């Protein structure tokens, strides 16, 4: 450590300040809070509550000033990549621009500071917003009804699978299997399994898409349904989806649509029109609610009328006729699968998604799909000479490449990803879908401009060239971040999952 700056802990370059854990900043007696004065008599908790029910000190809890807290998190924020700083082409995640007005709207007191259990009469604005959003999503997806309750895509899958189960059970059928293509996202099989189904993996064909024969071969009366992602995780439109749905339906099964890639279809085609019976929509992808470093998301589920009786409760219902005007929460769905969320779901995300749909309108939404698909195809066209394309056909909103063409250089997908960081980009999704060896899955979204795509493509091409000329630089990247590659194996081998004061002394 010859850098004398190391001695004071600021070894980052530029404004990349080092920052210890908040616990290490803590000083006994330092204060970051203020509480209102007592206007009621104080009570002695130890005296008042049963013996042993009052705790001691909270071990390891920090004592820091407001200034400490502000600097701590401001500094930490500077170590993150983000959409607002640049292209974040994480495939399958639709990291599009998150409009600021939506953030502002969700913070309106009437939304942010309202309690879910206040009487329906005191939340008519919210219920109307839910109603509007349900209708908007139903129209966009070609579905008959929508529940907003699931908190993310995976919970939407769970809800959908549960409704499929309820549907069959209502018919007295106890089907035990769910078909899931091997290219599906991990949440698909996990959701099916979580609901007690046996998961049958369907292999994709050489051309990357599902073929009716593959479904035909395994479809039976013991199969409750098929989960399909369209466009698939390879960015390909499932051209045989209509036929596949027919096959499933013919044997009494239902088709679940994973809507994570809905962005490609907005105003172009509707899953409901293609034969999908039930699907989730990731509001945090297609409808631009921010990803928040891992969430919150929101995973509304659209269903055809056959599944409507099984929707989770409560549902928002518009009063009509003699009932008067307004909206109520309806709990009276005897065949409902029940509740999935303590309240109505991630309501704050409903505000943002509705705001987004209103801002774009029918034309703007279609434009999203067109530009998202144009961007992905453009990148593919620019990168295909340097990176291997496993399934060589027109793509939808994302494209999948691999590291095969770099094989002789020793540079892998992981290296390319890490080197991209040096060039100022968040890497694409890598090694997914699992069926593509060394996958590099790029989803630029419609938010990126031509010049932005060109710069990214230049970076990708430069790295391919570096791989041949200076593989080491690529293999040891990133070189310009606060931390170089982190030892993930070590983290997993002997997990350190919390800070402990003792361990530090």
């Amino acid at each position: 450590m010859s850098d004398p700056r190391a001695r004071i802990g600021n070894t980052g370059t530029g404004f990349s300040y080092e920052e210890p854990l908040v616990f290490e900043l803590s000083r006994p007696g330092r204060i970051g809070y203020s509480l209102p004065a007592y206007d009621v008599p104080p009570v002695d908790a130890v005296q008042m509550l049963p013996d042993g029910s009052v705790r001691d000190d909270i071990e390891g809890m920090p004592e820091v000033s407001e200034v400490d807290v502000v600097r701590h998190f401001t500094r930490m924020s500077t170590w993150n990549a983000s959409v607002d700083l640049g292209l974040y082409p994480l495939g399958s995640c639709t990291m599009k621009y998150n409009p600021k007005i939506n953030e502002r709207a969700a913070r309106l007191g009437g939304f942010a500071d309202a309690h879910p259990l206040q009487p329906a009469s005191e939340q008519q604005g919210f219920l109307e917003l839910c109603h509007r959003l349900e209708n908007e999503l139903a129209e966009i997806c070609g579905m008959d009804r929508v529940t907003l309750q699931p908190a993310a895509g995976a919970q939407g899958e769970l809800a959908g699978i549960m409704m499929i189960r309820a549907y069959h059970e209502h018919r007295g059928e106890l089907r035990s299997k769910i078909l899931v293509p091997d290219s599906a996202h991990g949440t698909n099989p996990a959701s099916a399994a979580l609901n007690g189904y046996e998961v049958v993996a369907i292999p994709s064909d050489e051309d990357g898409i599902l073929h009716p024969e593959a479904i035909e071969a395994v479809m039976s009366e013991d199969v409750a349904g098929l989960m399909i992602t369209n466009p698939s995780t390879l960015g390909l439109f499932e051209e045989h989806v209509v036929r596949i749905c027919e096959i499933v339906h013919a044997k009494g099964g239902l088709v679940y649509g994973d809507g994570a890639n809905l962005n490609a279809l907005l105003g172009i085609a509707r899953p409901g029109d293609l034969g999908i019976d039930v699907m989730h929509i990731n509001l945090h992808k297609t409808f631009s609610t921010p990803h928040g470093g891992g969430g919150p998301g929101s995973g509304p589920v659209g269903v055809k009328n056959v599944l409507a009786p099984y929707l989770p409760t409560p549902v928002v219902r518009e009063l009509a006729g003699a009932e008067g005007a307004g909206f109520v929460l309806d709990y009276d769905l005897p065949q409902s699968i029940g509740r999935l969320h303590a309240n109505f779901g991630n309501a704050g995300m409903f505000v943002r998604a509705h705001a987004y749909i209103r801002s774009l309108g029918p034309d703007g939404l279609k434009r999203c799909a067109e530009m998202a698909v144009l961007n992905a195809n453009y990148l593919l066209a620019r990168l295909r000479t340097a990176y291997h394309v496993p399934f060589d056909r027109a793509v939808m909103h994302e494209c999948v490449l691999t590291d095969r063409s770099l094989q002789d250089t020793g540079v892998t997908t992981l290296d390319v990803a890490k080197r991209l960081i040096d060039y100022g980009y968040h890497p694409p999704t890598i090694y997914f879908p699992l069926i593509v060896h060394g996958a590099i899955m790029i989803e630029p979204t419609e938010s990126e401009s031509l010049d932005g795509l060109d710069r990214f493509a230049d970076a990708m091409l430069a790295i391919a060239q570096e791989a041949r000329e200076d593989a080491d630089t690529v293999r040891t990247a990133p070189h310009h971040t606060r931390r170089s590659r982190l030892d993930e194996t070590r983290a997993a081998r002997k997990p350190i999952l919390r800070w402990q004061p003792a361990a530090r002394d």
Partner: protein
Amino acid sequence: MRYIPHTENEIQRMLDAVGLSQLDELFDAIPQKQRLARPLDLRRAVSEQELWGELKTLAARNASTETHDCFLGAGVYPHFTPAVVDALTSRSEFTTAYTPYQPEISQGTLQTIFEWQTMICGLTGCDVANASMYDGASASAEAALMAMRATRRSKVVVAAGLHPHYRDVLRTYLNGLRAEIVEAPLADDGRTAPLAEQVDGATACVILQQPNFLGAIEDVRAAAEAASACGAKLAVTVTEALSLALLTPPGELGADIVCGEAQSFGVPMSLGGPHLGFMATRQKLLRQLPGRLVGETVDTEGRRGYVLTLATREQHIRREKATSNICTNQGLCLLMATIYLCLHGRRGLRALAELNLAKAEYAKARVRENPALSLPLEAPTFNEFVVGVPDVAAALERARADRLLGGLDLAPYAPDLGPALLVCTTELVSREAIDRLVAALAGDAS
């Protein structure tokens, strides 16, 4: 469109580059008759100004703590959040990032989660904590699933004091599995009656809420003993996370899993979500834990850093064998709560909990001395308690007329109690507001 940068000229150049002549051809893979032949039937786009007007109008039609004094709790708590929380959470480096798969450019999110895990361990008395579940309800359901995996048993004993919505969610989650749910009733004082009758050798776990739905502070140790006597796990669910700053941590009292809802830590009530499910457990149950975990490690130069770890529990690696299907979680709410906890720290959180306790004790005293009202349950409480009123509808209507959200009608949830409200008093309600509430509920002339 201001969110889409493409100009007509650029679109043409890009189409040329991909060898197409018009946008339509991008979708050639979709057979023409599968396409939507009409525009979407949605209202035309509005400008930002118009949108803002529309949404303000909708928001104004909801009551809120801006317009009302709120005595509603029942799983969602009105607390004061320092402005720092939103100011920092709004930094777009946090807001517009996603799951920290690439640790070299995600240390901000990762270190935050590591700090959160540490503080939740301290608060719950557990060894390890994960990086968020959807909400307290699904966290409780996942706790049951976790116990079932760990014990290879399938009976779940649920205390009747578990939030009724949580019970519903539990039922929904367990429905497809071969599981049995048994309810353990409440005693007259509002606490769970001794569990011996329900817990047996087939029991995977007991789920107990602390304080329970009716506000009663439960005897966690007794439940832990009943469960462990049969080799069952005890999962304690906490809906009012602030109580963890005052009450003995369930982990210290023998709970195997402590989970619940951390909305109280600076997350807006926001009509019920997004909130923040948490889950913590003992070291030996670590591999059964659902959800994300962040661990400490070093980089190639030996510098400390953080990464997502133990991903082999998760769906993206293990698929149908994963411990859970959760993927997108409640990251940004976790950030809010972490900031909130750092601000309040060791002393502030405890002091705030004591203030909440004092508000409730004051309110209970006022209720007790009012002849029209009663306190039907005798168990000790934290910041929430049951008030018996002569006529719920009339009481709430009088409260509403005085701009009070006067408590939750317990009729749908605990009909045996007779006409009663669940009333919550946090630091947000003043003595004066409490006095007005008591008067309104009792029908006293003001």
